[in-house]
């Protein structure tokens, strides 16, 4: 197969797309090193916003809340979502199809509706069970909106899997749970990992739902940034965004390298199997 050469027009188009995607981030990173608070006048290079960032208790504590709630909710949602996906997969189609559609509703629903309804539910339950909005409700809200994404990314992997594999494992003496861990899990692992990463990034991104469910004691980074808009967003936010961007980029690079290695491995195995008589 001959590789198709991209036309000059196509290349310009691609460059433009990447420019639109990355130019704002580039500007953000550049201005995190600007020595004045201005977002338009360059006044000199400095690291001071980074040192100030690590002394700013409110940004750091909101960053801590964001990371903690994202990691916990991603872990729990991945666990629950994977189990739910396996459950759906083993159901009769008549049942699983409508249930999966219901699962999709929160994904398509506007965040604000999810946020307000969760908030009202928590406030109502709270007056009954005597609890206030806080980290607990924030975490439950995040798990709630993360679960559908995990299910959506695990389901296709289950459907791609050869169903007879499980039967074969059980025929060979595995109990169902052994078969799940030894056969199903490795098969759907890429879906689980993807689901966890999507859930994590959704959590870090979220503003609206957190805003309605966090209560008076905790605040996520997104909420903190939003509340600065009357005065002016401090360059410390550029600094923390730059660091977050770098972390996410490194994470993605690692995931990509792992994936391409695994693909190459799989390819080699396939070739080997084909070449053997």
């Amino acid at each position, binding site marked *: 197969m001959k590789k198709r050469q991209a036309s000059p027009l196509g290349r310009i188009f691609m460059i433009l797309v990447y420019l639109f995607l990355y130019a704002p981030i580039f500007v953000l990173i550049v201005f995190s090193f600007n020595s*004045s*608070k*201005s*977002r*338009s*006048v360059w*006044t000199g290079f400095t690291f001071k916003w980074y040192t100030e960032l690590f002394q*700013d*208790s*409110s940004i750091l504590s909101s960053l801590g809340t964001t990371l903690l709630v994202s990691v*916990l909710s991603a*872990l*729990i949602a991945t*666990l629950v979502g994977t189990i739910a996906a396996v459950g759906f997969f083993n159901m009769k189609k008549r049942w699983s199809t409508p249930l999966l559609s219901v699962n999709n509703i929160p994904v398509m629903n506007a965040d604000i509706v999810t946020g307000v309804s969760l*908030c009202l539910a*928590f*406030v109502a339950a*709270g*007056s009954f069970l*005597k*609890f*206030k*909005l*806080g*980290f*607990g*409700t924030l*975490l*439950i809200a995040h798990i709630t909106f993360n679960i559908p994404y995990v299910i959506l990314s695990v389901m296709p992997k289950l459907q791609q899997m050869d169903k007879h594999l499980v039967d074969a494992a059980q025929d060979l003496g595995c109990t169902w*749970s052994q078969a799940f*861990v*030894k056969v199903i*899990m490795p098969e759907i692992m890429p879906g689980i990992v993807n689901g966890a990463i999507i859930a994590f990034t959704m959590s870090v991104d979220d503003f609206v739902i957190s805003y*309605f469910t*966090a*209560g*008076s*004691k*905790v*605040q996520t980074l997104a*909420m*903190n940034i*939003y*509340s*600065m*808009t*009357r*005065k*002016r*967003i*401090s360059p410390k936010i550029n600094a923390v965004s730059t660091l977050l961007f770098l972390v996410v980029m490194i994470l993605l690079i690692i995931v990509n390298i792992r994936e391409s290695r695994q693909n190459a491995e799989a390819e080699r195995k396939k070739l080997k199997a084909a070449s053997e008589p």
Partner: protein
Amino acid sequence: MKKIIALLLALSMIAVLSACGGSKTESKGEVNVYNWGEYIDEDIFDDFEKQTGIKVNYSTYESNETLYSILKTGGSSYDVIIPSDYMISRLISEDMLEKINFDNVPNFSLIDPAYKNLEYDPSGEYSVPYTWGTVGLIYNGDVVQEDVTSWSIMFDPQYAGQILMFDNSRDAMGIALKYLGYNQNTTDEAQLREAFDLLVQQKSILQAYVMDQIFDKMESGEAAIAPYYAGDYLVMVENNPSLKYVLPEEGSNLFVDAMCIPKGAENKENAEAFINFMCDTDIALANSEVTGYAPAGTEAMKIFSEDLDEDLYPVINPDKDVLANCDVFTNLPQETLDLYDSLWVDLKS
């Protein structure tokens, strides 16, 4: 593998349980403070904790209206909030504030009497002033050569395309009302419509309706005329020395942000201790140095303005005669608020 899963399950259960437990238990030694973003020196929390042993939980909002809706929704408990004047009068009228026990706030005596018992809290039982300031006219001396004393340059076609305006109805209408010589709290529909007509005319020569982008547009010289808060001018002039500030002779808006305790606060005494701490001259000074807004304490204000450059002094400490022309926003009746909303929608569309 099974063990790992079991472990993960157990860990996540513990996390969920402890998280829920954490939000349920209400230890006595804390105070929940809800303030504007970037409106305090956060280092003072440590001092407060050292002095009193009370831990500060701090969170922030970006507008009075957000604060109001969060309080109305319920489900969360705040002990100290710092709304602006007109929002305080609204909260008082809706019985959403707790009376402050001034026996626990001895430092209240340090507050300048000029900011006590203002129109928004006539009995002075509900609020302790935090900072105050004026809305003034900021302009670029390189572009505007004339001697500016009035709001008139905001409406001068000579500067078409260089003028910025507040992107919120109350402040924008407030400027138009003042320019016409009316009170900013007027409920007279004819006056409001006249101000609205002025804003409609102005729209054609405006560059944009903005809020915090004013900083960047004025500093970079993209725009030459804009109204904004006096405290923020101090920040802008550092980056662009050609910027000038004037408090127009017609008068303007005088705002006071004050500390209040919302109804149902769980740590009322801690809240009073915090409010008392904030009135302390050194603490008020530390806050004002970070935020740029003038402190409400007499002594703190004196030191704060002495530290300023001579030409910046009148910005923060305006002439008493001009100050007398300024209005403090009070809460408007619902029908006037509705009129504001509908006029604003007409203007922006």
